[in-house]
């Protein structure tokens, strides 16, 4: 029997591995989900055969109630309500880990350090996951303001709680007494609340992904508590793959993970003395890919640099890839871009860009705030906001393509070289602009490669 159970666990683990892998590809995702569900079924059924398990009444009742509630919710929810439901479910998983840890504390037979550490980890991580997810749920469901909730000393308080949790953890491992456990439970629940409150509603999906990875680790910790392999494998798989997913999601929002988690704090702390002079922020081709991959509306703004790099064919290819990915793609041509009238036209026609996708400056500018990403390819003067902002600029008064009003701007240049007019360009210092240094053709080719290897 034991052996069969173990075998079943191995099978379940394998199904989880395949499940996660397949969930990451569009054509196999649904089947992957099914596989992992089958794995779960096998794991649950196998567990029921454990000799320790005797009282089937409770189990049956618990499973039934949980299944009905989960099933009904999942069926009822609107398309738009799904993310918050996932948050809620995730919170429940965290709470379950807390309860398992607690039960083991109360009634477990083993008191070695590893077990205690595991109980501690299960409760801490589970608790944070529970309340954190719940706050995320409230924010997403609109039952709580999506704006970061900030108050003075927040950072310090969180730090204090965290330190207390650490100390209590050590203490617990030495002296596993009940009040310490209760304190840990309460404090982790609090940490979850306080940790998520300062994060804005738009970042909630990332938070949920992160908490999900967290709850996987809580599961793995619970696995160490009861010495169960499948829990460890599944929990750890979810833990690490979740981290990767979290990072990917951050990249798609052109944010770093730290920025998401602590951005709210930063806003609170440093709002007063915000520097006027920004800095030019680079972005790696890979991160740029994640942003582009999620973009619905993209414009290319070619300039003389595209011609120098002879990047037109690569640009056209990237454009086609973006279109295939579902984005609307246009090419915004500034009348003076390049070094001769119609310079960009010659090149783009050579690369077979359809005339329909070429847009004049005046056609693009009114719609530019809907543009997710503006890719500036070796252009400089024609996107220099000084032309609109700075009466002392020699190009003041010239209409430009207002890429700085797009959500995100990628500026492709080799270095810090100025354009024909020799002017510094404030665009590159803007908050929403990221530089991708290097020859434009190389950069674009690499971006396209990212797209292709994504399939």
């Amino acid at each position, binding site marked *: 029997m034991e052996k069969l159970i173990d075998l079943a666990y191995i099978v379940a683990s394998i199904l989880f591995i395949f499940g996660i892998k397949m969930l990451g590809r569009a054509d196999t995702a649904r089947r992957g989900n099914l596989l992992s569900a089958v794995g779960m079924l096998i794991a649950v059924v196998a567990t029921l055969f454990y000799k320790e398990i005797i009282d089937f009444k409770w189990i049956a009742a618990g499973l039934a109630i949980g299944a009905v509630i989960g099933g009904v919710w999942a069926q009822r929810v609107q398309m738009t309500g799904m993310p918050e439901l996932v948050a809620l479910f995730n919170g429940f998983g965290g709470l379950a880990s807390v309860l398992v840890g607690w039960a083991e504390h109360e009634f477990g037979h083993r008191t070695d350090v590893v077990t205690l550490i595991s109980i501690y980890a299960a409760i801490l991580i589970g608790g944070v996951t529970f309340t954190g997810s719940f706050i995320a749920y409230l924010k997403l469901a609109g039952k709580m303001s999506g704006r970061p909730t900030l108050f003075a000393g927040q950072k310090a308080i969180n730090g204090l709680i965290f330190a207390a949790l650490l100390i209590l953890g050590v203490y617990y491992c030495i002296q596993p007494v009940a009040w310490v456990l209760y304190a840990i439970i309460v404090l982790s629940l609090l940490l979850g609340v306080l940790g998520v409150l300062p994060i804005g509603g738009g970042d909630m999906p990332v938070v949920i992904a992160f908490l999900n990875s967290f709850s996987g680790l809580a599961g793995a910790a619970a696995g160490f508590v009861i010495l169960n392999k499948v829990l460890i494998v599944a929990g750890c798989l979810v833990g690490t793959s979740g981290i990767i997913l979290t990072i990917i999601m951050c990249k798609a929002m052109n944010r770093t993970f730290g920025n998401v988690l602590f951005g709210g704090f930063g806003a609170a702390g440093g709002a007063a003395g915000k520097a006027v002079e920004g800095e030019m922020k680079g972005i790696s081709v890979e991160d740029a890919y994640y942003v582009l991959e999620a973009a619905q509306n993209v414009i290319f703004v070619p300039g003389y640099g595209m011609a120098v790099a002879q990047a037109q064919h690569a640009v056209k290819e990237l454009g086609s890839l973006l279109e295939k990915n579902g984005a609307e793609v246009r090419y915004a041509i500034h*009348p*003076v871009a390049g070094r001769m*009238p*119609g310079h960009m036209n010659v090149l783009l*026609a050579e690369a*077979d860009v359809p*005339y329909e996708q*070429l847009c004049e400056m005046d056609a693009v500018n009114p719609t530019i705030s809907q543009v997710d990403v503006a890719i500036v390819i070796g252009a400089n003067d024609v996107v220099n906001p000084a032309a609109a902002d700075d009466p002392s600029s020699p190009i003041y008064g010239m209409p430009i393509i207002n890429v700085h009003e797009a959500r995100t701007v990628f500026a492709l240049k080799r270095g810090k070289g100025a354009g024909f007019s020799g002017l510094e360009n404030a665009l590159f210092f803007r908050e929403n602009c990221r530089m991708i240094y290097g020859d434009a053709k190389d950069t674009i080719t690499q971006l396209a490669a990212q797209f292709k290897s994504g399939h």
Partner: protein
Amino acid sequence: MKIFVPKETDPIETRAALDPVSAKKLIGLGAEVVIESGAGERADHHDADYTAVGASITTDRAGTLAAADAVLRVRKPEPAEIARQKSGALHVSFLDPFNESGLIKAFADQGVTAISLEMIPRTTLAQKMDAISSQANLAGYVAVILAASRMKTILPMMMTPAGTISPAKFFIVGIGVAGLQAIATAKRLGARVTAFDVRPEALEQAESLGAKALRIDLGQTGGTEQGYAKELTPEQLEKQRLEQGKVCAQSDVVITTAKVFGRKPPILIKSDVVAGMRPGSLIVDLAAEGGGNVEGIVPGEEVVTPNGVRLIGLANYEGHVATHATQVLAANFANMIEHFWDKEAKAVRINLADDIQKGCVITHGGAVVHERFKTA
């Protein structure tokens, strides 16, 4: 074998039947090549260029005609010159055999073996001697260059500080070899190109060059087995004219290329369509020499209609690029002679069982041997 290339007599003809490169090739086979003095002059090939490769130059046209085993020329001969050739000799040129029954009779009577370049089968194997293709190809290019040089506008799109210049709209009717090259050339220059043909596969070919194909449902159509187009029914022509009229009205340049095998070219653009076109727009008719695809065309001339449309109906488009036209035409001649060359006899071997010769040899051994012209 003594091969003679007389100077072309038609004043609009700028090409020659052989260039020095192909002459050299024939001499390499073992032939003797004689060129009438000045024959290549208008294609920038001078007598000295020919002698440099081993050909001889003559000024005695009549005498050499009589002595030659083979005469190569571009255009069909005067009947009087046929009579000069010796019996059993070869004559290769464009012949227009459907309209020149007199010439065919003259060849047969004289015992000359006449090969018509037009009649070379359009098969893959015979492509290297297919002069219709090699010349039509250049004609298609020339049509676009001519149009571009006569327009008061430019072809490509340009977004400039002084506003946007929109690309010229070209409409190519008839997507044979010439039509395809016209599409390619106009596309290269940045024009928007629409194309039409009655053969559906030709529409695909146009698209393979990046043109937009105008698809009109005409019901049953098709080509002969040799790849030439069949004539359409009047209803079909009517529907086609209607749809085409719409496109023409929006076009800056219309190029027509529909020659129909052995017949007068069909009228594709009637006067009402021309009247609907914009002032300043241009029509280039590649079929003008045979009568034209456009109503009102005057072969060899440029006509301006009352509403300011310019109709261009030259006779010898490929002759505009005489050097290259001569190069490929001469290669066609040389390839043909090489293909049928008898190494021992050092002469062209006539073998009417051969698929290619069956198609293009009109008269042989004092008789009309070609199926299509036997009754004639």
